[in-house]
């Protein structure tokens, strides 16, 4: 009796499994958008935390190993994936950039061991992955860091789908059209000994443009080999010797790459940029770490001209109030003069005519 009772259950389970496994491929064949690929880091040896999904390596002792990323193509056509390695930098909106950063022309002077000098790609830059299959991209890392270095080295490994879209026949319309590219970036972080105490420095202060709008550009530099996270920045600009704020701005949630710098943009937001002597007070805080900067600086007329030129998308600077007063009073004076002249001429005319008629 017992056997009779469990039989149907077993068969049901078996059949269910069969049906489910048959159903899966039906779904996979459906039309796939360009984004139908994914990448996954294969956890490396010496991974500090195996579950971070990026490379997070302990390089306290010299370490040589191969890093692997599996690229999976779920679509029904061949794809081309382009790989790139980058040193981590900081973007002008206060974010760690793991890819290309055109604002960074040179490595930060405090960056001793750029990631790109430690890791190199060992598979071709462009990898083709057949439909419904996967391929492995590899990179070789050789980290042999001196005893006097401790901290983090950070970068990114980028994978961009550069496959030409299949529907090239689609309307080539005459207007402005923007296409999309799908990409992934897997961070490569190496830490020697420990995450070090973060340090920050204030660099140059100069007016310029942030996102093509007038701003005071305040260079902030992370001089430590550590990632500064959850950073809040409060900045105030006054005239020298005055306490009245001309510009104030509060930001939070910034993150700065190890040994990098960026131009923090204090926006003028419609205010005029006027030459003069100013003072900046800036407070930055990440958890228990705090920095306070106080500095006098000067804005020259040529600084203003250059900044206004760079601020492509700002309304042209407004006229100062005294210019407006001057121009309007001049206009009033001129108008008054014109009226006066007309009145004088009118008064004279009848006299002339009468004298004519007499003749």
């Amino acid at each position, binding site marked *: 009796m017992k056997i009779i009772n469990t039989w149907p259950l077993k068969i049901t389970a078996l059949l269910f499994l069969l049906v489910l496994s048959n159903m899966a491929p039906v779904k996979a064949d459906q039309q796939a*958008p360009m984004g139908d690929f994914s990448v996954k880091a294969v956890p490396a040896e010496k991974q500090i935390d195996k579950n971070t999904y990026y490379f997070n390596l302990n390089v306290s002792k010299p370490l040589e190993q191969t890093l692997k990323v599996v690229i999976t193509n779920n679509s029904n056509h061949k794809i081309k994936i382009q790989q790139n390695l980058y040193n981590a930098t900081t973007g002008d909106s206060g*974010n760690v950039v793991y890819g290309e950063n055109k604002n960074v022309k040179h490595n930060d002077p405090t960056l001793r061991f750029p990631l790109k000098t430690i890791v190199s790609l060992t598979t071709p830059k462009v990898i083709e992955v057949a439909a419904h299959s996967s391929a492995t991209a590899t990179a070789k890392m050789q980290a042999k860091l001196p005893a006097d270095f401790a901290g983090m080295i950070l970068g990114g490994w980028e994978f961009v789908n550069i496959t030409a879209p299949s529907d090239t026949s689609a309307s080539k319309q005459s207007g*402005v059209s923007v*296409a999309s590219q799908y990409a992934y*970036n897997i961070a490569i972080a190496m830490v020697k000994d420990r995450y070090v105490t973060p340090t920050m420095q204030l660099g140059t202060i100069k007016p310029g443009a942030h996102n093509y709008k007038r701003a005071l550009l305040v260079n902030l530099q992370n001089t430590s080999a550590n990632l500064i*996270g*959850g950073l809040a920045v409060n900045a105030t600009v006054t005239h020298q010797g005055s306490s009245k704020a001309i510009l104030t701005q509060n930001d939070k949630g910034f993150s700065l790459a190890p040994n990098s710098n960026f131009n923090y943009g204090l926006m003028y937001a419609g205010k005029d940029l006027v030459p003069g002597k100013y003072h900046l007070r800036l407070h930055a805080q990440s958890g228990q770490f705090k920095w306070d900067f106080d500095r006098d600086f000067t804005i020259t007329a040529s600084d203003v001209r250059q900044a206004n030129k760079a601020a492509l998308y700002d309304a042209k600077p407004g006229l100062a109030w005294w210019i407006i007063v001057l121009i309007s009073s001049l206009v009033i004076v001129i108008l008054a003069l014109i009226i006066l002249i007309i009145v004088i001429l009118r008064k004279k005319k009848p006299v002339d005519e009468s004298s004519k008629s007499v003749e």
Partner: protein
Amino acid sequence: MFKKYTKIILVFMLVMGIGSMRVAADEQTDGSTDATFKISGAGKLPSGPVDPDHPNEWKNPEKGNSFALMNVPSTIDFGIGKIVAGTQKLTSTTINGNGSSAAGSAIQVGDLRADNPGWSLGAKLNSEDVNNIIITLKNTDVKNSFGNKVTLGENPITTNSDVNILSAAKNSGLGITTVKLTNNNFSLTLPAGQSKPTEKGQITIKWTLSANPNPSVTNMESVN
């Protein structure tokens, strides 16, 4: 004995019946993305976008290690610029998606990674001929199928470097995150003198999904 076999046969018929019905249902929806929001396997994301109006399907996804940029618009059209002396701002007229459903034009990230480490989605403009353009995403909001709080960034997208469009801190990225788009959600600013800068494909937005330390604090531990 007779009773035993009838039972088996009945169960067999029932299972086959349900099975073939489901397969048929999937085939019917071929070409649209609606069929893809059923979970196909443990911890796996569907291929392609999920209907943003049905996030309930993903309230309790099985966790695994899937992590994907599921969808972004295929193209964004801004209409035709006029020749003007100053700068001009164009508002998008059409957002073209992948496939025919509304889900095809959404920005969508799927994350079923069991450890919920957080992620960020960056965007950068690539343009060979036109410099100094910016694209701004406006008047949208972000929804996560799990009710997680994912931050939507408002920084303009430029040719300089990635800006964060979406960021999920540690323990808040799990689920399907969707930014639903309507036709006028993007604006494009062009510098003076450039009225018609592109043919199709000359400007692209590169959308990059990143697995990275994604810090909300400064780490101070020893690793040895």
